[in-house]
């Protein structure tokens, strides 16, 4: 190489050669290392609660895990044993009612926002309302259903609980459905429209099948959060120590059982609260993992 040392001596003469050496003591480098260390620490500290919760669930809740929990009724004050079979059924029934109401409405609304009229004023309003409802305190949903339904029916009920859960699920299902529908490539919709499909046919034959994994993600997320809900149920389903016999009577749920038992001075009830938490978290996690599986299948 001919153009090296000689040339550079001249270049160097013109302008002092800057030192570009890496120095750990230099303030900006030192600061970088400290900051990087800090974010690592912060991330690790933030992970502690999750592991602590999981540890407690497994050690405290797992210790009491037995078949009885699923087949027996909650024990009264000083009684030993017992379970929360009715609460599991109550939670499943109310989440089921909530899903039956919110999923069709949510998907239909999502179709309207995503495929039928994406840019209309109405759609923009619906989208905005959906986002506002997402952050809406769930206890106020409970208060609303209490005023609108429980008072009219004259009783707390699984039905009212299901409606309250449906309202909580709706924005999640609605907005994720819209997202999934919007992700369907325009060329696919064009192909269907170009072959003479009506809007409905385009939606059913092309858009929905393609968007299905994304929609399922939203549904699973909605179910997961509904299963863990407690505040709205307090105002709508309340609680019951008995097996569910009708949809129009006060109904037990895992979350309210945990709430009630956590404040009791009896070790048996506290243990049951931990076991119920473990079961509840497992239900929530199953749906959460399902949502991730569907999410991963998205192209």
């Amino acid at each position, binding site marked *: *190489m*001919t*153009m090296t040392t000689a*040339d*550079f001596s001249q270049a160097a003469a013109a302008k002092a050669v*800057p030192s*570009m*050496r*890496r120095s750990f003591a230099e303030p900006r480098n030192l600061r970088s290392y400290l900051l990087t260390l800090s974010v690592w620490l912060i991330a690790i500290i933030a992970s502690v609660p999750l592991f602590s919760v999981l540890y407690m669930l497994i050690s405290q809740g797992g210790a009491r895990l037995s078949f009885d929990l699923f087949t027996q009724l909650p024990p009264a004050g000083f009684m030993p044993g017992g379970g929360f079979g009715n609460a599991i059924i109550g939670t499943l029934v109310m989440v089921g009612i909530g899903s039956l109401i919110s999923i069709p409405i949510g998907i239909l609304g999502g179709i309207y926002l995503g495929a039928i009229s994406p840019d209309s004023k109405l759609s923009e309003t619906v989208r905005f309302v959906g986002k506002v409802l997402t952050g809406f305190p769930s206890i106020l949903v409970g208060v609303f259903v209490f005023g609108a339904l429980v008072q009219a029916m004259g009783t707390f009920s699984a039905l009212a609980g299901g409606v309250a859960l449906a309202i909580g699920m709706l924005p999640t299902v609605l907005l994720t459905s819209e997202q999934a529908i919007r992700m369907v490539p325009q060329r696919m919709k064009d192909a269907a429209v170009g072959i003479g499909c009506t809007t409905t046919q385009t939606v059913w034959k092309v858009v929905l099948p393609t968007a299905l994994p994304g929609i399922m993600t939203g549904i699973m997320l909605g179910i997961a959060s509904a299963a863990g809900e407690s505040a709205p149920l307090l105002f709508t389903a309340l609680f019951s120590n008995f097996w569910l016999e009708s949809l129009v009577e006060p109904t037990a749920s895992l979350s309210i059982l945990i709430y009630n038992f956590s404040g009791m001075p009896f070790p048996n009830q506290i243990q049951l609260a931990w076991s119920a938490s473990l079961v509840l978290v497992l239900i929530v996690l199953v749906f959460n993992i399902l949502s991730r599986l569907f999410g991963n299948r998205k192209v």
Partner: protein
Amino acid sequence: MTTNLSTPSAAAATTAGANAPQYAISAAIDKIYYGDFLAVRDSVIGVEKGKITGFIGPSGCGKSTVLRSLNRMNDLIPIFRLEGRVDFMGQDIYAKDIDPVSVRRHIGMVFQQPNPFSMSIYENVAFGLRLNRYKGNMDEQVERSLRRAGLWNEVKDKLKQNGLALSGGQQQRLCIARAIAIEPTVLLMDEPCSALDPIATRIVEELMLELKQDYSVAIVTHNMQQAQRVADITAFFSVDVSKGGRTGYLVEKGPTKELFDHPREQLTREYVSGQFS
């Protein structure tokens, strides 16, 4: 055609005139890899002091990759690997103990897409000054930089406005002002006009010709006319697909007029006459 590479001595011979050229940067790149992919090979190239060096060639020929390796911009890509030397004022900037951050403070860069920060015009230009803890008069230096970038008259009344509110051509000149505010030794420009309309392009080209009085400039362009208009020295890269890959390499370089009028290589002749692109 047979590969008749510019060997280092041949490369030097083309640029060595009566007065031996002075180089701000001289690079002898053996190989550049992205992971297992060999992107560039055997390219010896310099950025002459006080001159504009143009990099031309068909797309995929590695001209941008080479330019970006001159200030270690490619370090942002984790799988990037360079074999060879890039000397800047007597130091190999790829040496183990060199801080790439320092390198970029001396070798500025203007990018293909105008990329002002989402802050005021003033703060955009003052960004590098603050970064380098500039002790002098900030207002003056900002004004001087904007004047040199030919943007002062258009923005002097709205320095507080967000830089993103400017037109594309103005944004690019703002980026140039931002780059030259800290008086770097070398200015690298990666297709700076490709996102601009013809009028804005002309303004930026005139600007480059003024800048070369103070800076050593290297510019990548896909536009041969632009290279002829602004570059003192032109380097032509091409892409070698013979071994199943797409590997760029330097075909030849020389004074711009000579390269365009009397190319030594057949490949160069075909390219500058528009037979392929």
